[in-house]
């Protein structure tokens, strides 16, 4: 299961998702809006950031001032005052740093926290058809990686960039102040940096993409090999597979190397550029100082050397931030796309909560398909009176489950109406219907937690006594009490700690605790031992008593008890009646029953 998830997550074909996306003003505005709730923190952060972009060059400035001034002039008192000034400035820088870090980190986390809650709440409003279509892995990757990208965008990109730009600006101002001619040399080099950066970002992103693709080929192959290991070993394919895998790995390594090589060329070029600048500076600045013939020129040169570092360092940081911004854009885009996905349908605005129901159900010419072009049910009509048990019988794919899905308002019919106590189902709020409905599905889905937690799922406020009572009525208390910690036994992931029979009992108890007017039950098909089977049959009888029940029936014994049997074929009801009536009718059902008796006894 998880392996398959991994495969779908990493499979190359599945990844129509781009890792980066151009800057988009719409998305940026929206991200800024998500910080609205923390407006005070955000504004303080901007103040702090501006302060910091002044402080950082300030520190270097004081350092050079002391070196070129008092130190060069031999003024010891000046050196001491300079040191004091440096100490004070340094301390204040770190205080500001504390707030800049803390505020930014917290802001990012808070925004992410809100987005997660928003996303989760939004998911809960989506109709079943959405979950039918969407892979779990997709949703999870929205919640993990995309939100993480957005976090970096909110936490870092803006503020780091501001600090860096500020630092560059301050450094530039200082340099112009000292010697505007020398600064022109710096300026002349800037476009070279920019172009280098642009070129390599382009090359790198291209190669990185190729590398990621080749890596997803590796993981996809790997996942297949692991999941298909039984096939591989039984067909003695190990050597052939190893050969193919080695090729894939070597191929990936080629892409990997090409990325590393691009990096290996880019970084030295960048550094060489700033080194080149220093030697030019030394030559030109020195030349000028000698022309001038005074010590001031040397001081200016030293200041320049320090400031130039401040000026150049942000370039690579900004390049990095830029690429993170693009990643954040892609994440934000996907995230907002999911948040904005409108449910295909919602309860109409004038929907009313269902009154306490008696449980009369009527299908009127209902036609339905999961995709409109392929109808699964056509023109289905029937009536179930309050308290009746309706058994749905037919092949896999004949439409039994669809009837249940429509009745539970998980889907809406394309045409026709479903009436509950005479009310159109569409006009009743889904939530109010579900409160009066009990559901037992074939997968017997349990949530992590204890047995009691799972039973209480249907009615969170239920007391322990109520739970005991429900188990008692189903005559299954001994099953649960025998567990290591009784009703407080954890069921494990998806209920793995319980046996099949126990899991089903929990689902029965869950449904009985809800004491629903409408019961929907998809009978389990897996064969369990006869004693448990028998007890489940007994419990089922208790469960359906006194409420309108729809059972997707797999066992003859269940069908026999039904007040109404609907025999479905290709989305139509081909026969209806009680077991006895249908036998007398000598149609499909009777034929089926005969065969059953023949084979089974």
């Amino acid at each position, binding site marked *: 299961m998880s*392996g398959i998830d991994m495969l779908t997550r990493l499979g190359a074909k599945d990844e129509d998702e781009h890792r980066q996306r151009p800057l988009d003003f719409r998305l940026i505005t929206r991200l800024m809006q998500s910080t609205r709730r923390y407006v005070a923190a955000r504004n303080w952060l901007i103040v702090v950031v501006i302060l910091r972009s002044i402080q950082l060059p300030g520190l270097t400035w004081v350092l050079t001032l002391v*070196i070129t001034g008092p130190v060069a002039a031999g003024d010891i008192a000046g*050196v001491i005052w300079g*040191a004091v000034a*440096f100490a004070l400035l340094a301390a204040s820088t*770190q205080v500001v*740093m504390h707030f800049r*870090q803390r505020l930014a980190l917290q802001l990012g*986390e*808070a925004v992410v926290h809100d987005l*997660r809650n928003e996303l*989760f709440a939004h*998911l*809960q*409003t989506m109709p079943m058809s959405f979950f039918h279509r969407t892979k779990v892995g997709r949703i*999870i990757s929205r*919640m993990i990686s995309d939100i993480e990208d957005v976090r970096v965008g909110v936490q870092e990109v803006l503020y780091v960039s501001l600090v860096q730009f500020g630092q560059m600006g301050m450094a530039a101002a200082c340099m112009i102040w000292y010697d505007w001619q020398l600064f022109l040399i710096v300026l002349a080099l800037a476009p070279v940096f920019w172009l280098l950066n642009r070129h390599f970002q382009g090359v790198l992103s291209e190669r990185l993409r190729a590398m990621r693709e080749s890596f997803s080929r590796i*993981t*996809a192959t790997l996942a297949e*090999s*692991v999941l298909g*290991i*039984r*096939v591989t*070993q039984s*067909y003695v394919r190990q050597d052939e*597979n190893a050969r193919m*895998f080695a090729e894939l790995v*070597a191929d990936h390594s080629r892409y*990997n190397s090409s990325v590393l090589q691009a990096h*290996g060329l880019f*970084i*030295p070029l960048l*550094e*060489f550029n700033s*080194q*080149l600048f*220093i*030697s030019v500076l*030394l030559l030109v600045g*020195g030349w000028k100082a000698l022309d001038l013939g005074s010590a001031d020129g040397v001081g200016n040169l*030293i200041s320049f050397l*320090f400031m130039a570092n401040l000026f150049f360092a942000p370039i690579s940081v900004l390049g990095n931030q830029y690429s993170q911004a693009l990643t954040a854009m892609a994440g934000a885009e996907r995230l907002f796309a999911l948040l904005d996905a409108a449910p295909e349908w919602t309860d109409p605005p004038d929907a009313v909560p269902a009154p306490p129901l008696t449980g009369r159900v009527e299908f009127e010419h209902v036609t339905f398909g999961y995709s409109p072009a392929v109808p699964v049910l056509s023109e289905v009509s029937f009536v179930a009176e309050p308290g009746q048990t309706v058994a749905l*019988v*037919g092949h*896999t794919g004949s439409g039994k489950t669809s009837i249940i899905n429509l009745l539970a308002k*998980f889907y809406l019919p394309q045409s026709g109406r479903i009436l509950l106590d005479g009310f159109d189902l569409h006009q009743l709020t889904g939530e*109010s219907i579900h409160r009066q409905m009990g*559901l037992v599905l074939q997968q017997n*889905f349990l949530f*992590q937690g204890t047995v009691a937690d799972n039973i209480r799922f249907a009615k969170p406020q239920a007391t322990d006594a109520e739970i005991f009572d429900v188990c008692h009525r189903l005559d299954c208390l001994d099953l649960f009490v025998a567990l290591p910690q009784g009703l407080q036994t954890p069921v494990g992931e998806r209920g793995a700690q319980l046996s099949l029979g126990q899991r089903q009992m929990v689902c029965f108890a*869950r449904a009985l605790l809800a004491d629903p007017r409408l019961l*929907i039950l998809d009978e389990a*098909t*897996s*064969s369990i031992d*006869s004693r448990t089977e028998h007890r489940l049959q007994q419990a089922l009888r208790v469960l359906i008593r006194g409420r309108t029940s729809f059972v997707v029936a797999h066992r003859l014994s269940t069908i026999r008890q039904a007040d109404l049997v609907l025999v479905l074929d290709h989305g139509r009801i081909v026969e209806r009646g009680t077991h006895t009536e249908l036998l007398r009718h000598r149609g499909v059902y009777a034929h089926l029953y005969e*065969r059953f008796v023949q084979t*089974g*006894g």
Partner: protein
Amino acid sequence: MTASPPPDEPASPTSSQLLWRLCSLAWRFRGLAGLVLALNVTLVVLNLGSLSFTGLGIDVLRETLVSGATAAQWPGGVQPPTDWSPRAHLVVVAAIVLACSALSAVTKYVTALVSALLSQRMLVQLRAEIYDKLQRLSFRFFDRHDSSGIIGRVAADAQAVRSFIDGVVLKVLTVVLSLAVYMGYMLALHVPLTLACLCTSPLLWIGAVWFSRSVRPLYLRSSELSDRMISALAENVQGIQVVKGFAREPEEIARFAEANRRIKDQKYEIFRRLSTYQPMMGFLTQVNQLILIGYGGYLVIRGELPLGAGMFVFANLMSEFAGQVGQIVNIANTIQSSLTAAERVFEVLDAPLELTDAADAVPLPRAKGHIRFEHVTFGYHPGQPVLHDVTLDIAPGERIGFVGETGAGKTTLLGLVSRFYDPNAGRVLIDGVDVRQYRLNDLRRNIGLVFQESFLFSNTVAANIAFGRPNASLDDITQAAQLSAAHEFIAELPAGYDNLIGEHGSNLSGGQRQRLAIARALLLDPPILMLDDATAAVDPETEHEIRTAIERAMAGRTTLIVSSRVSTLRRTDRICVLKQGRIVELGTHDELIEQRGEYFRLARLQTVEDVLSDDVAPSETTR
């Protein structure tokens, strides 16, 4: 030759054992690694060169312009003739700085290339080695570990182990050597100033260690909390029908919000510490600069230190130094994650191959197909046998059906014939010889297996059929497809036999996948055919088509067929009913129905769908 008991989980190795093994792994790549190291040290020296000559340039200028400034000290006393003009001196210095930078850039590029070569060579070797081992491991290993974990071992863990070699071993050596070079240079300039400026460095180190210790549990907890949040989400999505069915959305939202809030609280605590620690460390490095300003300034004024080659160089080296110390913290973190990954990688590499050929293994060109189980007892976990003392004789060419409840041991029984596992007691014989005495690959080539879930690989249709014999001709492939009633639908695919199959055969129907799986088995023309509930996951209409394929496939082969459907079982020569790992009934369909025992009961438990599907075939012909 008695079966060895399944090995228990090996005790996890200690950190020092792991470190030792990782280091010896690194030793395998010592040639390239040594080169990378040498190049890195060269880089440090070149950087130092361009920095110190920049400083010298300043001194040359001061010498000329500032009265009373100390004379420029050329390294090693090698200096251009004094009768050269200061401008000429300046040009020489600038040229040297440029030369150093150029050399450094080239060296850096070469270093990058060599490092890439090293890391890729390691990665390729490691991945291939792990993968190769994985393919040969027995199923017990796959039973014990979940598939995504195993995938992670090859994909991510191999990467992490590699990063131990270049991220830890090489890095530590580089950092130590660079620090030594820097220290040596600074000490050569001025011993007391060096010591004064570096006096806070131990504090930096201690602070880093203390901090990473204090936050590690917080980070662990935070990733635990976020795992919990993710699993709440996954559970919600997977059980959404239940959630909606019981109108529990509000409670689920509250549950998620709670999990989410706990992450936030935990993160805030980490942020509080982080945003206190980092400025403090930052301040410590600034204290170094402060000392430099004060003490260094004093020394320059006293004429004991040149301004350029001394103070200017010192100021720049300090930040380099702080950077290197900071790296050590990152390295410490890498060690931790590498160790975890290494443990998982070595577990695979060290896992014993439980099933190996005996030294005197005999070849099995083509079996006659006589299978015999003799008092076979087997369990996946010691003390929990799944099969108890099973004895059964299957004649060549016989078709035998196996039926029983979930967990009765049907699939296990088939697995013992293919030797996916060895029995704990008793033996399985083919043509009168214990299967453990055959060459494993020969044995498996004699058996065609069709699983409940036909696992197809994302490759062409032809390649999937030829899975067990990659060099099969297209004629052979077509023939196998015809035999398994797959040829028609393959011919209708857009690219026929060259059509690509999506992941897990997602672009084919269940019945089509199953027929391809049967073709895959038939291509080998195996004397023994085993069908493990091959029709269970298939809708009834296509089951009919598969049944035709199965009928044809069984002709002339010993066939073992697991099924819960009476319709399938009825077509076998004998039916073997298993209950809790024992054979409880054995006979033909009619005999067993007559007996009114376990088989009779199971037949009654047939689901309506089973009967319906059985109905499809005859009704189509009679109508």
